[in-house]
């Protein structure tokens, strides 16, 4: 079974068969609740709901871990800052809410093929035609935004590997700069690839 971010894991579960629109709405609702009311009860409830979703979808723990692994350093920084300001409980809740939002998003992307997601977003964005916005372009932008998480993770892994291969320690400057440069180059290549396929 695949454990890549942003990649659908084939299956025929109830979660896989649920309409993409319903899954996206549920995701929006979950994220809204986590942002607006990150209380222990809410976080625990969403955790149970998300875990149930993964079990129902037949997704392994490996898939779940793959979704949140890129957050590691950010979570550590978030909790450290909160500890320094003597707000450990708030820090843990914020970190928990973030992890759950990413896991919930991972559940949607792992059970929804991108074309189905694109079709759903295109339909939802149809009213925007009246104000001169192409729904197809809106869907493509959102799908690429979801894909960007996995791409950034891959680019960061490449830079980490380059450091390891040369026996260099990972420093913020020597990590952030090359990842940023690669991300910008990737954006250029992506724009050219989409244009070449008549989608730009």
């Amino acid at each position, binding site marked *: 079974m695949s454990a890549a971010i942003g*990649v659908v894991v084939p299956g025929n579960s109830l979660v896989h068969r649920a309409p993409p629109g319903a899954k996206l709405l549920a995701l929006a609702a979950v994220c809204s609740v986590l942002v607006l009311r990150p209380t222990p009860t809410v976080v625990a409830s969403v955790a149970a709901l998300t875990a149930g979703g993964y079990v129902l979808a037949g997704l392994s723990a490996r898939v779940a871990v793959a979704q949140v692994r890129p957050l590691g350093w950010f979570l550590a920084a978030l909790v450290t800052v909160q500890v320094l300001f003597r707000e450990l409980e708030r820090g843990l809740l914020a970190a928990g809410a973030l992890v759950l939002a990413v896991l919930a998003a991972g559940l949607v992307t792992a059970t929804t093929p991108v074309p189905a997601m694109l079709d759903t977003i295109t339909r939802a964005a149809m009213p925007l035609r009246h104000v001169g916005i192409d729904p197809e372009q809106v869907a493509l932008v959102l799908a690429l935004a979801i894909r960007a998480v996995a791409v950034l993770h891959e680019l960061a892994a490449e830079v980490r590997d380059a450091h390891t291969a040369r026996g260099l320690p990972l420093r913020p400057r020597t990590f952030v700069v090359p990842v940023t440069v690669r991300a910008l180059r990737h954006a250029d290549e992506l724009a050219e690839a989409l*244009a070449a396929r*008549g989608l730009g």
Partner: protein
Amino acid sequence: MSIELDGVSVTIGGRRVLQGLTVRLDERRVGVVGANGSGKSTFARLLNGLVLPSEGRVRVDALDTRTDGAAVRRRVGFVFTNPDAQIVMPTVAEDVALSLRATERRPAPRAAAITAALERFGLADLADRPAARLSSGQKQLLALASVLVTEPDVLVCDEPTTMLDLVHTRRIRDVLAALPQRLVLVSHALDAFDGFDRVLVLHEGRLVADDAPGPAVAAYRTLVDRLVETVDGR
């Protein structure tokens, strides 16, 4: 259908990459060769409007790449050197499906076209595999499948085998040789032009030879010998 370049020059970042190109391509198989920095890739990109001329104009089937870019790109497919630069979606089948969004909206015909494209390129068993986990050769086959699924009239390939091993190089060449479409192939591998109708040789942004493969490749070899002598200071 013909591709016409009329007095085309391209300047990028203040540097003249191509200058004064006037050429008409009517043949089924056209090769393009030249040293690094000769303007080959820019020439290839001109043909489907990825690069627009700074001077002159490029027309495909009477459509101007500057004003009819979308229509030109429907007729002219493009395959990049690096398939990673071309593959957009997470999985193999999804990437092929992306190409069809602009041309086929009905789910059943779209699914049938995806299946047929994957089978044609030996990728059917890899349909749900993350594209990032394919080998370089499989990625280039996917890039080809994603472009050819829309059935363009012309395929432009910019050094499609440069990053591949011998097995996949031969496989890609076999696929290209069997294409019913017209092909414009940019390559450093001179034997890739066997059986071609015409080969263009570019040097420092100018067309320095334009002939059948035999004489054109001979002209390129002479040019390379001269360049090597210059570098060696002989």
